[in-house]
């Protein structure tokens, strides 16, 4: 029996050995000169696995998880959007309540803005002033990007905190236009000199995105809400709004149940693109919606879209099943597949360097 005891004790000692480690990352050095494309991979909500990818269109090389690899720390939870100003990329990580500033060549962090509610997009007005829109907050945050500080707020009228939603921003002179998406139906006009809402325009239910074309016309597309929503459910619409008069000039109606999103413009601002299962394109001067898509879906689940501002190549992101590395397809203007590559989980937004 003594022998049995010894064997038992030895076995117990063996299993005490532990090798479970929460690894520190290792810092890698990058030098990404020239033009390139950042891809914001949202990751899964509440899992903190958002990542940033970088693609060089010239060499057709992609580097994934560049933020993690360059900084040895995670990007965060739900990477929502990114813009670049003067060689600094501003990466908005929604559920991490942070906007990271990174060097666009080394991908190293140079600073961060914190104290945000649920940031969605950032827009620069000057070197020391930018706006950050929010979800679940009825305020747009005013920040000083040089000091990474919050300096003020713009209160949105007739909007509760619980229903708060401000999204994409487009500048026109001293004014800024903002669409309001979640359980909302308005476009706001903000005077950037006074940081106040000076006008608002009612559109359809839930305008998802906003762009300004070469004719100084705003375009927004609504998703129409969803069936049984107390806020309403209607056919989505594409609106053309005159920036100066802030009035709707044209309205194109989709079918009930469609889900148009990701409204984009090409580099010259004369052609609109959007997702609605397929990829669609339309001249800004068109009088009716196109009947055939620019690109058909192929069992794909298109989630993000961008147009190369330099050559017009179309990049469309396939989220596949939302729980594996998504795939980017790069097409020419003649719908030829130029390249395809895997990035991170749920690629949703792009940013051109």
């Amino acid at each position, binding site marked *: 029996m003594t022998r049995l*005891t010894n064997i038992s004790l030895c076995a117990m000692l063996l299993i005490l050995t*532990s090798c479970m480690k929460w690894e520190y990352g290792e810092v890698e050095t990058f030098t990404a000169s020239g033009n390139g494309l950042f891809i914001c991979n949202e990751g899964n909500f509440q899992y903190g*696995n958002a990542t940033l990818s970088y693609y060089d269109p010239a060499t057709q090389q992609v580097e994934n998880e560049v933020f993690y690899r360059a900084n040895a720390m995670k990007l965060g939870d739900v990477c929502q959007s990114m813009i670049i100003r003067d060689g600094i990329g501003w990466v908005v990580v929604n559920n991490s309540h*942070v906007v990271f500033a990174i060097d666009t060549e080394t991908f190293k962090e140079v600073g961060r803005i914190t104290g945000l509610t649920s940031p969605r997009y950032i827009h620069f007005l000057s070197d020391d002033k930018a706006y950050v829109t929010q979800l679940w907050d009825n305020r747009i945050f005013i920040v000083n990007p040089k000091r990474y500080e919050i300096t003020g707020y713009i209160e949105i009228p007739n909007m509760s905190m*619980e229903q708060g939603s401000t999204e994409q921003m487009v500048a026109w002179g001293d004014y800024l236009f903002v669409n309001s998406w979640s359980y909302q139906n308005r476009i706001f006009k903000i005077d950037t000199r006074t940081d106040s809402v000076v006008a608002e325009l009612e559109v359809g239910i839930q305008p998802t995105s906003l762009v300004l074309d070469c004719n100084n016309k705003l375009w927004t597309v609504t*998703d129409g809400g969803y069936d049984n929503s107390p806020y309403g459910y209607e056919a989505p619409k594409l609106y053309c709004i005159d920036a100066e008069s802030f009035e709707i000039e044209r309205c194109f109606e989709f079918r009930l149940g469609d889900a148009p999103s990701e409204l984009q413009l090409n580099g010259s601002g004369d052609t609109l693109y959007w997702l609605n299962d397929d990829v669609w394109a339309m001249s800004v001067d068109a009088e009716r919606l196109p009947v055939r898509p620019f690109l058909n879906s192929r069992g794909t*689940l298109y989630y993000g879209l961008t147009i190369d501002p330099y050559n017009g190549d179309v990049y469309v992101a*396939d989220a596949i099943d939302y729980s594996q590395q998504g795939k980017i397809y790069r097409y020419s203007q003649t719908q030829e597949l130029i390249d395809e590559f895997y990035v991170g989980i749920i690629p949703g937004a792009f940013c051109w360097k």
Partner: protein
Amino acid sequence: MLLLLTPLHAQQDGERGRFRSSVEYEPISVVGARPIREIGYQQTKFDSLALKEGVSLSMADVLAFNSSIYVKSYGRATLSTVSFRGTSPSHTQVTWNGMRISNPMLGMTDFSMIPAYFIDDASLLHGTSSINETGGGMGGAVKLSTTPATNEGFGLQYVQGIASFKTFDEFLRLTWGNRNWQVSTRAVLSTSPNDYKYRNHDKKVNVYDEEMNIIDQYYPMERNRSGAYRDLHLLQEIYYNTGRGDKIGLNAWYINSKRELAMLTVDHGDDTDFENLQREQTFRSVLSWDHLRQNWKLAAKAGYIYTWLAYDYKRDLGNGTMAHMTRSRSRVNTLYADLSAEYYVGDKWLFTAALTAHQHFVHSEDKNIILQDGNRGIVGYDQARIELSALVSAKWRPTERFGMSVVLREEMFGKEWTPPIPALFIDGVLSKRGNVIAKASLSRNFRFPTLNDLYFLPGGNPDLKKESGWTYDAGVEFTVGNRERFSLHGSATWFDSYIHDWIIWLPTTKGFFSPDNIKDVHAYGIEVEANTEIALTKEWRLMLDGSFSWTPSINEGEPRSAADRSVGKQLPYVPEYSSSISGRLTWRRWTLHYKWCYYSKRYTMSSNDLSLSGTLPTYFMNNISLEKIFSLKKVDISVKGAINNLFNEEYLSVLSRPMPGINFQLFVGIILK
């Protein structure tokens, strides 16, 4: 070295009619019991030592260290779900005194909200065996029960625990009984700010110079932010036994819980800016009547569950005002009724029949909004659903060495019926020497969508199909030993199951999640269990329990597109291997208890990518405790100390959810003799 001292956990000793301490063992059991009602069962039963091992333990802790099923924990005193055989938590059915307690909105049970001290009898019904208890357990079922004490007169047990992170646990049990009546009141109160320290490897803190250039960065030592909890549980039991074959029981369990939801490791927000709080009040009650005669039994149960759930996510506006970002409320009322009968024909046949009904009424408010017309509106749903389940079975044991059972179950949820759900079980004694028994079973099974799957706004999908599947298993077990010195029991089971139309919630292009019948999954593998009990000397005794599972759970659905790399891959967050070992060494009134559990690496992506955030590393956990019982004239006093996470591992169980490092517990218990 820190003195390890521990609680006196006591349990009812039915034969002697009083509480007894955990170091008083029954004679070693070596009989391979094969009751006719359990022909072919693949089950894991938990002894009272495991259930009453610590007042602060939840059933999630007990299952993690005493079985090989996968416990997915989002943190200390945070949502913990369990899953069998490579399935999801919603494929695990949970019953308490016969009544299903899975939340009908979510279809799953939070095992961190079930104090192990409230459970007297627990068993796992693996795969097909769950059909005997309830439908819908594609992976299996967890069967939890309370049992009447057999006290004569008044009994009292009180345990107080003090632990790291300012954690306080209190347990009180009062009992009174006589030949006919048994009354028991139990209460558990657990509180903690739960602000354990950990090194955050997922983010860095920046050090800036005056020009706001980063001059240094480091991984911060942080506290678990916004993770406080206060859980109160009350359990009242009243049993009446006529002594002439009729028993009546009433169980009523009240939960009042207030838990903050801890911030992610990648959250750069200030915890004082936010309030992220979940509150729950649940009342569960079961009234039961058993009418036993020599060769037949009739039983009836009626039950009621009320659950109120509140979730508040608030933001400080900078002036001290906390404004709601999310305010959701839900109420669930469930009525339960069960009628069952058993009839023995001689000692070779047993016929059973049961009819069970659950009627749910759900009111869910997820968001308050201002409508387009300026009026207020609520995003939510009101739904009711009746769930019926009927079962008939015939169990036959023509000889002592062979048994067979045929079960037929039929279920109706709402207006939809399942096809008949058949199950077949057989077992046979291969060798009386060593009590070697072979078992095999097969069954069909279905799981209906939950109410949230169907009706949640936004995203609920009323067109969902029910999941369906087949499960097969076969195994062998043995029991050897003698009553005085030694026993060894072991089992090995192979299983193979297919689940079609697996329901998964996925994001949509409209910004919300929606469920769909996405996957076909093939889960298979092997479960091995072994336990031994050795009386080393007259005063030394060793008990070892071990389990191991190999559970490939493979997505075998059609690829969604040519780019889909998930087909043929292990499901995310399902470990392929898991194991646990629990060892208990006693000497006189001392008990040393060592617990260990292991999960192999878990993929976080359906494509099993090995990117930096694509896997969670292999998980090992070691806990140890030492207990001493002091027997005084009128009371037993126990002192127990425990160390959790013995090797102070820095680890995550789920991405971005930090777990505590080494932590300590001290318990003192008193039992009235």
